């Protein structure tokens, strides 16, 4: 009995293959976009975990200085002499050309076996070669490929290391990082000798740091991945509209079958169970297809994501996507959960369907005025929650709650707004066909409202994210012009060479401005502190958001400090606040500057103060001011005079182009997800129109019988779809603006630590509007074509008595 009933249910899909295809495609696309984001995030997290696990940082404790400063060599020796089993490590950023490398120096002889990620005594590396000059750099194969042609010590390959990391002997690393005798931390062997003298007596300046359970990178990039997840979820939600529409339609079409099955003796419980089984089969099919598609999308997007993460955070992510069971499981679970959630109301209707319910399908999803108002009230409530989340809430989660509630609230309000607009249009219409057109369009609204809500979400996301990216681009380009005011940027190969170059340049340029920095620990957070030489370049160009009147004089006098916006926001700093630098030196905040594209805390002090605090600061980088038309000539002379590689002298345009490239790639993924979401929404309209086409026949046939040609009716059908898309686009503009504001003023501030001025781009809306009109016309084209091609015999069936 059950099998017979199940085949009767499934036979619907055999007769309505297009509807089945739309249901599977909608769910598969929704799952695909979500899975793509999950696969990318999982890949990134895997890379972060590998990076965090380098030399056992995730398993072994370490000794570090309380103030975050490097540990002196003497301290290490004292500890070893006292019997402490510790091993020194230096870690720093090594620049080569335009790239960066995380260099970790170890002492292989004292390194605990648990931290020995790479066996440096193996034949292919060799202990002697590793520890004696010029030393070796052990890197992952893909890092070696990036280093090809760079002036580095000999390379050895190891699959055990994550990309972007190089391992060397500590002595070699100290030399490469220009930090002789310095140690970042001391790794503690897990088993220590008994009866050791306490740490406080040998090295009171050190404290024990527990193994890191979460890497800095993971924390730093959380917001980036949360952004991606939010967009993935939006795409999934848009896809679910298709699923909901397709399932709802199937329910209405199968109403007579359901009633008959009940009448023939199928228990209600069995009918519900069969309906759920059917949904599970369909959702699993679509889920497998969706996750597979998602991997394809992720493979295409991953290079851009990896480039964004490298450019923004210095985080290295493997370019190769690995298949992870968790992504498959989550994708399938989401497909099943999404389908069941979309079908919940229909399942409830089946469970409560009276045996003698009307067998004819009702007008699909006919919505009473009361239901419309109730839905709109729910939408208004969500908008209120969105506003409250902004006013009362804090943090990124509150930002996303506000964003989600605003989008969903606007979507729920859409049918009522459209209904009112169409009623008004009908009242203003003069001709009988015009009046019928608007009245009929209004009647189609319940059947199309889900697809239109999906379109609203997609259009609003496009308009909003477009405004956000556009505002960011305008601000970023302006900011780059201010920030990159110097004509040339030079990286010497050593401090000595840098000294020589600056002397050489003194007579040949207008100014030489050092770009020297050291890491400080301020308010418990590592901060890169730069030293600024007082110069008109900074006085005229530096992008200050807030400043004391005598900001530059106080900086030059060594009594003031500038902090970047993200540090000021994170630590709630204001002008006049005091910050303590190493050695207990207190500085007053005299300015806050914008620092887009950098998620980390940064500060600036006078160059003399920097040199006083950090006499061994790396002095290799500096900028050169010269008349722009002489910049290229000077760069060439400098390269010749010092036999410098081309990458070590970069002109302003190249740096700007590089920065903009990172910027564009950062938003390439967002743009791709946006376009895909719009595509899914267009598909939702197409699916709805196509599946409604059969039901429409009963409404169109009388009008045809009374004298309107099929061609005209088909044209009106296309116009109807375009009119609804236009009104939805108009509604999407304010929603998009609200979304852009939330992204710029709330989410960005929480996620990245900077706020941007908002700009609007009406031309983009026009382009988006045209795109949605074309999508709507294309979506309506096939049903309209089918209508034109209808044989009169099919149309008169509507009037036949023996239907």
């Amino acid at each position, binding site marked *: 009995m059950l099998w017979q009933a199940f085949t009767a249910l499934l036979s619907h899909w055999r007769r309505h293959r297009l509807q089945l295809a739309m249901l599977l495609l909608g769910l598969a696309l929704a799952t695909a976009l979500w899975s793509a984001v999950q696969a990318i995030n999982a890949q990134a997290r895997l890379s972060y975990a590998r990076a965090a696990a380098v030399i056992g940082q995730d398993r072994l404790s370490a000794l570090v200085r309380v103030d975050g400063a490097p540990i002196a060599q003497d301290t290490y020796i004292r500890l070893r002499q006292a019997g402490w089993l510790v091993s020194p490590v230096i870690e720093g950023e090594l620049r080569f050309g335009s790239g960066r490398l995380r260099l970790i120096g170890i002492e292989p002889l004292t390194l605990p076996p648990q931290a020995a990620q790479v066996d440096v005594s193996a034949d292919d590396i060799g202990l002697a070669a590793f520890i004696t000059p010029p030393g070796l750099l052990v890197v992952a194969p893909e890092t070696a490929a990036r280093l090809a042609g760079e002036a580095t010590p000999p390379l050895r390959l190891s699959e055990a290391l994550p990309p972007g990391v190089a391992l060397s002997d500590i002595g070699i690393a100290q030399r490469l990082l220009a930090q002789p005798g310095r140690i970042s931390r001391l790794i503690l062997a897990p088993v220590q000798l008994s009866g050791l003298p306490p740490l406080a007596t040998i090295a009171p300046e050190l404290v024990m740091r527990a193994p890191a359970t979460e890497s800095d990178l993971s924390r730093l990039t959380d917001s980036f991945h949360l952004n991606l997840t939010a967009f993935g979820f939006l795409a999934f939600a848009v896809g679910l509209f298709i699923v909901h529409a397709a399932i709802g339609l199937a329910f209405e079409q199968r109403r007579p079958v359901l009633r008959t099955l009940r009448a023939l003796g199928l228990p209600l419980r069995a009918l519900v169970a069969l309906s759920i089984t059917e949904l599970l089969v369909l959702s699993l099919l679509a889920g497998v297809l969706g996750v597979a598609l998602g991997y394809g999308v992720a493979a295409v997007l991953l290079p851009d994501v990896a480039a964004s993460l490298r450019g923004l955070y210095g985080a290295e992510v493997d370019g190769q996507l690995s298949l992870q069971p968790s992504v498959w499981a989550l994708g399938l679970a989401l497909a099943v959960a999404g389908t069941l959630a979309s079908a919940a109301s229909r399942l409830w209707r089946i469970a409560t369907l009276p045996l003698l319910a009307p067998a004819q399908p009702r*007008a699909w999803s006919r919505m009473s005025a009361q239901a419309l108002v109730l839905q709109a009230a729910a939408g208004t409530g969500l908008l209120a929650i969105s506003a409250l989340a902004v006013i009362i809430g804090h943090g990124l989660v509150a930002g996303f709650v506000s964003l989600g509630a605003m989008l969903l609230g606007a979507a729920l309000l859409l049918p009522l707004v459209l209904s009112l607009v169409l009623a008004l249009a009908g009242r203003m219409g003069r001709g009988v066909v015009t009046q019928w057109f608007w*009245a009929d369009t209004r*009647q189609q609204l319940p059947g199309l409202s889900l697809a239109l809500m999906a379109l609203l979400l997609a259009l609003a996301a496009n308009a909003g994210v477009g405004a956000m990216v556009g505002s960011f681009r305008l601000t970023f380009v302006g900011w780059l012009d201010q920030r990159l005011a110097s004509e040339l940027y030079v990286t010497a190969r050593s401090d000595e060479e840098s000294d020589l170059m600056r002397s050489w340049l003194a007579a040949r340029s207008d100014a030489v401005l050092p770009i020297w920095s050291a890491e400080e620990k301020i308010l418990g957070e590592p901060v890169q502190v730069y030293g600024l030489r007082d110069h008109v370049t900074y006085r005229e160009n530096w992008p200050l958001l807030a400043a004391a009147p005598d900001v530059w004089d106080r900086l030059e006098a060594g009594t003031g400090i500038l902090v970047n916006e993200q540090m000021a926001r994170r630590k709630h700093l204001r002008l006049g606040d005091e910050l303590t630098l190493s050695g207990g030196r207190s500085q007053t905040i005299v300015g806050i500057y914008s620092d887009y594209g950098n998620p980390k805390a940064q500060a600036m002090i006078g160059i003399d103060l920097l040199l006083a605090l950090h006499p061994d600061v790396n002095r290799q980088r500096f900028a050169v001011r010269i008349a722009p038309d002489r910049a290229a000539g000077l760069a060439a002379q400098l390269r010749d005079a010092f036999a410098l590689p081309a990458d070590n002298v970069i002109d302003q345009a190249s740096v700007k182009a590089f920065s903009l490239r990172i910027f564009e790639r950062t938003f390439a993924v967002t743009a791709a997800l946006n376009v895909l979401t719009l595509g899914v929404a267009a598909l939702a309209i197409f699916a709805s129109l196509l599946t409604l086409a059969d039901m429409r026949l009963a409404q169109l046939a*009388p009008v045809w019988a*009374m004298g309107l040609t099929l061609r005209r009716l088909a044209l009106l059908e296309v116009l109807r779809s375009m009119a609804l898309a236009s009104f939805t686009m108009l509604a999407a503009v304010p929603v998009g603006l609200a979304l852009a504001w939330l992204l710029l003023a709330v989410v960005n501030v929480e996620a990245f630590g900077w706020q941007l001025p908002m700009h609007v781009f009406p031309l983009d809306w026009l382009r988006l509007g045209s795109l949605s009109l074309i999508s709507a016309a294309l979506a309506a084209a096939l049903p309209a074509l089918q209508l034109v091609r209808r044989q*009169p015999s099919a149309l008169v069936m509507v009037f036949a*008595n023996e239907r």
Partner: protein
Amino acid sequence: MLLELKDVSKTYPTGEGPLRVLSGVSLSLARGACVALTGESGSGKSTLLHLAGGLDRPDAGQILFEGRDIVQLGESDLAAFRRTRIGMVFQQFNLIPSLDVAANLAFQARLAGRHDPDWCSALAERLGLSGLLGRYPEQLSGGQQQRVAIGRALAARPKLILADEPTGNLDEATGDAVLDLMLALQAETGAALLMVTHSLRLAARLGSRVHLSAGRLA
């Protein structure tokens, strides 16, 4: 002669092969005539009505309306013919659900460019719809809906009313009342009426009757 069907045949393709619904049917209808078309289920009554109304085309034969062969008309001319010459009344009423009663009543007349508000008001009055003009079809009973359909068919002052089982969905008393109204209005307007019905009792109330059996006139 208002309507002449000459040797009209019609075949529909089906899963079991072509199905011949009408075979060489010839029929004439004078202006103002009132004819019942009877026959068993599947005898081709509705098909004949649809062909006469320009809703479908025959495979063979001529359909002359006021001497003009409508089979030869193009799609837009045929649509204009339906708009201006024919008033259709269906068993399922087939009102436009998105329009209220007043708009439904006037719909075809306005399409045909012959909207006469006074005539529409008079029709509404005669059909007992004056108090229902602001309602929508779903808010009406079957009898009320069929009265709106009759009003819609007559509002454009067509020359021929084609009614397909107009009382088939109504109980006997309501059906009789609706038919009384339709016949009275048909007589007033001078339109011809061709009505398909199963009921010999109702057929007897019309001026003449033709019987269709297995696609042929009996």
